[in-house]
């Protein structure tokens, strides 16, 4: 099947409906304070079991794209950013809402998200296949350094460095539980038969993200939706203004794309860097935090640009760059699809349908966002009394459904309790997920390297640095580490 035929297939009504449903769900979960795209994807994971892998993947991709935008709705209308990522949208959007310009702020948000999302997906389409093709040349040493880069960077981010490092190591530790696939011996199973098959990523995500988040939502009051008299504005007026500020859009999308490409770095840094840069170069700097649309354009275009680019390492190298992409990786594994360079050789239908379909998620997001603005305030009226129990029972089912294992439900609950405590003591949860996903990749490639080194009668470091590509990757890991540390300092 050629690329054009795959593209035509993505335009079939059933695929388009799935994409629209995914984006709509993403916007809704993103807009509800306390929920986000990652939770939406986790909860809808079981639904994808009944779908073709590429269709299920697009449903999740749609939620990811929609969820990124949805967070700005509450930020703009209520001054409640559902996530840190939406904080700049709140800082600039809410003052506009108070001035009776909520619709204008929401239009700026949706169309900036559209431009950013589009650029990110174009990068995804252009970069992923050649990178995957190049990565086919990687041996265990190269794959080890690639996986290590994700851990090194994510460990360098977040609040307290030691807590971030602990989170990564805790994730790696979880990944070692179960029967060791290389030697076949049991590790940390405490004699439990259920633990022999290890702890899969889905109950970990559901526990740490859904259950822990819901625990902390308990007791929170529903948001009071205040109605402001809103001025009328045409969509085209906003689009023309954004196009006029094309350098701001391009620069912010570029920042979002580059940071999205780095495994584990996340959207927050991209959004704050773009916002900070927009503020730095703005002629209307004094209007920032009082309702400056440049701030919304910068933050929202960077935000959605990360969606496409964060998928590049996942699809091309099998390295998920964020918790959300880790869940998507989990969904593909359930369908028996092995991520990484061989994906484009073994299942090009899945890979290319997803790549092209992501473009359509941007279109769907723009249409839903532009048309649905007047209905967004209804989403905000959903009460916590309904959200919390619904998410909890869906999460329990999601944990069970992966392996039809009741023990996975127990794991999710325990990790939910642990996750809630971690959140309270400021241990970041995202690095744990990345650690769980990257752990087997690191260990397997390290073990393979050791076997090869022994067979060639070389020391491990000698073998691992025996070719220029491996040396280059090691240098890249070191450079990335320094760059991220510097970026962190700058952002702080």
């Amino acid at each position: 099947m050629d690329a054009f035929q795959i593209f035509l297939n993505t335009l079939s009504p059933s695929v388009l409906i799935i994409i629209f449903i995914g984006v709509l769900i993403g916007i809704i979960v993103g807009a509800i304070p306390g929920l986000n795209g990652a939770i939406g994807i986790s909860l809808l994971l079981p639904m994808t079991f009944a779908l073709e892998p590429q269709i299920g993947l697009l449903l999740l991709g749609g939620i990811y794209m929609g969820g990124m935008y949805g967070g700005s709705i509450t930020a703009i209308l209520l001054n409640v950013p559902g996530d840190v990522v939406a904080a700049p949208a709140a800082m600039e959007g809410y003052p506009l809402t108070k001035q009776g310009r909520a619709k204008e702020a929401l239009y700026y948000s949706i169309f900036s998200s559209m431009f950013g999302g589009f650029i990110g997906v174009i990068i995804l389409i252009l970069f992923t296949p050649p990178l995957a093709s190049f990565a086919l040349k990687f041996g265990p040493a190269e794959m080890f350094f690639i996986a290590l880069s994700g851990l090194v960077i994510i460990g360098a981010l977040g609040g307290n460095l030691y807590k971030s490092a602990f989170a990564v190591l805790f994730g790696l530790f979880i990944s070692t539980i179960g029967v060791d696939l290389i030697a076949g011996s049991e590790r940390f199973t405490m004699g439990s038969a259920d633990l022999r098959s290890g702890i899969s990523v889905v109950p970990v995500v559901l526990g740490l993200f859904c259950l822990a988040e819901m625990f902390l939502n308990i007791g929170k009051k529903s948001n009071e939706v205040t109605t402001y008299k809103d001025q009328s504005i045409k969509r085209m007026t906003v689009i023309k203004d954004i196009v006029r500020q094309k350098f701001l859009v391009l620069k912010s999308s570029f920042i979002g794309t580059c940071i999205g490409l780095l495994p584990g770095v996340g959207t927050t840094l991209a959004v704050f860097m773009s916002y900070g840069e927009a503020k730095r170069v703005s002629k209307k700097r004094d209007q920032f935090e009082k309702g400056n649309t440049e701030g919304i354009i910068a933050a929202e275009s960077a935000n959605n640009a990360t969606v496409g680019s964060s998928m590049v390492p996942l699809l091309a190298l099998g390295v998920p760059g964020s918790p959300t992409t880790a869940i998507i990786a989990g969904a593909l594994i359930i369908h028996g699809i092995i991520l990484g360079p061989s994906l484009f050789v073994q299942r090009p239908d899945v890979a290319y349908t997803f790549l092209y379909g992501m473009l359509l998620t941007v279109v769907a997001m723009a249409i839903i966002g532009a048309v649905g603005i007047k209905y967004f305030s209804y989403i905000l009226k959903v009460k916590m009394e309904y959200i919390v129990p619904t998410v909890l029972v869906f999460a329990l089912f999601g944990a069970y459904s992966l392996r039809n294992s009741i023990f996975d439900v127990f794991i999710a609950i325990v990790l939910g309790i642990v996750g809630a405590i971690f959140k309270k003591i400021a241990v970041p949860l995202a690095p744990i997920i990345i650690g769980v996903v990257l752990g087997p990749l690191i260990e397997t490639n390290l073990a393979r390297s050791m076997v090869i080194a022994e067979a060639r009668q070389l020391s491990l470091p000698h073998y691992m640095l025996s070719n220029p590509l491996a040396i280059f990757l090691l240098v890249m890991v070191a450079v990335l580490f320094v760059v991220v540390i510097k970026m962190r300092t700058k952002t702080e």
Partner: protein
Amino acid sequence: MVIIILTNIIMGVVLILFSILAYTQTGDMPSQSAMFPRIVLYGIGITGLLMIVDTLIKVKRGKATNDSSLTLNSFIFQILIPGAFLLITYQLLTIFGFYISAFFLIMVVFFYQTYRANNIKITGKHFLKGLIVAVLITAIMYIIFTLLLGLPVPSGSFFR
């Protein structure tokens, strides 16, 4: 200041103890299997140690900042009680299966959330509302998961 010292130092101590305890479990493993977990456990232990040292240095320099929001109240009402609800639900799952357990969890969490958020007593009206919500959500899940998607759900020992 005391809270920062306590949280970070207790966490550091817990990490060191955890790494030592888990390390003892690697003794029986073949060396190849034990290598990676040992590296990770060394890392956890060292991180715990550095966390303690870093906190003490920051406190001495007066640069310590509090990043923890854990209080006894939040631990009991936001973590312990909801966690207990879920553990009870897990037990119910093994006995009565998914839908009955889901119904129970929705009802209980609905009442608890209503009580916690609004600080009001649960009345007959709330009970009726909770009942309707629980029936509706459970029915929707049944329609989606069992009827439409045909996915298996935990059946429970009682109905086997």
